[in-house]
């Protein structure tokens, strides 16, 4: 009996619970409507949040871009750039004949570069130099404009330039910042035969013929050897009211397809180094060089030879041939320290039967305090048949920026 009563009681409760848990269709519809309303509200809120997040991202992007643009602006927007280099030398040299020993310190060169980019394809470049620290009447130094030209990229692989530019000859004539070469002083072959640093006024074309094969070709002002002069170095007019009766032409082929290797040869034709005064003297310079770097080892070798009309022999016997060469192995012991040796020989009267060559052996060290700051020390042993060679050491400090 008790069991029956209990079962009836449970049954009633279940029915009551079931009736309470199962809403009617109307109640269900009401619940769905309420839930739908809540979903719509939430969706709207979510959409607003998304919109705000997206807007925040856009604002952040715009702000960052603006800040970057402002912070980049001074460097990126400057079309005019400045640079330069300089070198101080101390020479302690004794002459073999004991006459004219050299013991002096000299701020040999101080140079300022200025360039301006007119457009992506048109630019100006200049190099203004003070040599030997002080210039003026009776002073030892000079102020020189060594480069000032307009360069124009005609196409992707060809450029033209006009103005005053460096001759495309040799290794150091175009690249002579002190941190780029060994030895306190520049080598004698490029100085007395080529003669570096050498610039003229005119027009030039430069471009690539094939991958790793480039050319330079230029028409420009010529040398002028005044009465009694026969060395190319003396004939540089430096484009100062220069005589332009007869111009000169230079061409160069350069091969650089293999990393670390440069092979180049230049030819120059001087129509008349007397520039119409007296008997004409024409001349041809042939120069060829190799610069090879493999890991820490580097080798530079250069040969240059002038062939002038024999009429020049009336000024100086044997000056119709003027030749020189050097070979310079070097080795970088560390990133900062490099050692070199150089043997060179040059002769401004190689056409004579008398041995008038100047031979020089150099050995030295470069210490790069910074890739653009170098300290140099070297010893030189110079000999010639006239006994006027100079032996001794040179110390220098140079920089470029």
């Amino acid at each position, binding site marked *: 009996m008790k069991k029956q009563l209990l079962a009836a009681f449970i049954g009633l409760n279940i029915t009551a619970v079931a009736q309470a848990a199962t809403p009617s269709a109307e109640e269900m519809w009401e619940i769905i409507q309420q839930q739908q309303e809540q979903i719509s509200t939430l969706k709207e809120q979510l959409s607003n949040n998304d919109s705000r997040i997206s807007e925040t991202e856009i604002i952040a992007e715009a702000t960052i871009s603006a800040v970057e643009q402002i912070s980049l602006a001074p460097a990126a927007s400057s079309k005019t750039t400045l640079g330069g280099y300089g070198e101080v030398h101390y020479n302690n040299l004794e002459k073999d004949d004991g006459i004219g020993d050299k013991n002096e310190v000299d701020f040999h060169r101080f140079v300022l570069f200025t360039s301006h980019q007119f457009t992506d394809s048109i630019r100006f470049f200049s190099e203004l130099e003070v040599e030997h620290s002080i210039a003026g009447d009776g002073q030892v130094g000079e102020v020189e404009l060594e480069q000032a030209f307009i360069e124009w990229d005609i196409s992707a692989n060809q450029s033209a330039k006009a103005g005053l530019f460096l001759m495309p000859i040799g290794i150091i004539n175009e690249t002579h910042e002190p941190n780029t070469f060994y030895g306190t002083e520049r080598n004698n072959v490029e100085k007395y035969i080529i003669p570096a640093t050498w610039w003229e006024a005119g027009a030039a074309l430069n471009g690539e013929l094939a991958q790793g094969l480039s050319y330079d070709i230029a028409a420009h002002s010529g040398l002028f050897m005044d009465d009694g002069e026969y060395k190319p170095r003396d004939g540089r007019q430096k484009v100062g009211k220069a005589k332009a009766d007869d111009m000169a032409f230079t061409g160069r082929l350069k091969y*650089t397809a293999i990393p670390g290797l440069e092979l180049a040869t230049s030819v120059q034709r001087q129509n008349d180094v007397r520039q119409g005064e007296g008997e004409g003297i024409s001349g041809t310079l042939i120069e060829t060089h190799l610069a090879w770097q493999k890991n820490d080892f580097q080798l530079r070798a250069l040969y240059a030879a002038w062939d002038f009309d024999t009429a020049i022999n009336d000024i100086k016997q044997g000056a119709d041939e003027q030749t020189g060469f050097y070979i310079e192995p070097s080795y970088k012991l560390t990133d900062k320290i490099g050692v070199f040796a150089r043997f060179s020989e040059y002769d401004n009267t190689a056409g004579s039967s008398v041995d008038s060559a100047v031979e020089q052996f150099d050995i030295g060290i470069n210490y790069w305090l910074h890739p653009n700051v170098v300290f140099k020390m070297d010893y030189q042993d110079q000999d010639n048949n006239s006994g006027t060679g100079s032996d001794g050491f040179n110390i220098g400090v140079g920089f470029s920026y």
Partner: protein
Amino acid sequence: MFNSAYNRIFFVGLLATTLLASPLLSAKGVFQSGPDFFAEVFAPHKPQSKVLWMTADIRQQAEKILDRPVVGLRVRYHQLDGKTAWILEEIGKEMPITIGVVINQHKIAKVKILAYRESRGGEVRYPAYMAQYEGAVLTDQRKLDKSIDGITGATLSVWAVNKVAALALYYHGLVNPVESTNGQSK
């Protein structure tokens, strides 16, 4: 002034040289766009575009590598698994060189000159020059562990590429920390 046979030979030579110089060769200009570079590097997959924010410490290290002040708040890069690709710019002598660098497993997989604007040193873009960088890793001094044979007269262009290659390796290390033996990144 223009009366000798030499002058005539010169001008004929000048004309011939100009004609020979094929316009198909490009010593200067933009060689490849950024999107094309990334597409080529990760093909056929699509990498994730990411941003490295320049914190004070990162900026300081980047300035040491480049040896100049570094501006900008972020560096964009692309990544797929352990491979990242970066497009960075550095001035050679006067003009910026745009350089693409791909790093895979902390080694340089590829360096490519995307744009070259300097007057000299365009040889640096040749595949033979770029191939020298492959496999290079960063030393503790944050320099490349390989010696790169340069270009006589255009040392600055090679230095610029060296610095960018080292910087990309440094950035890659930041976004892909090397796991040390105790399981912590270093």
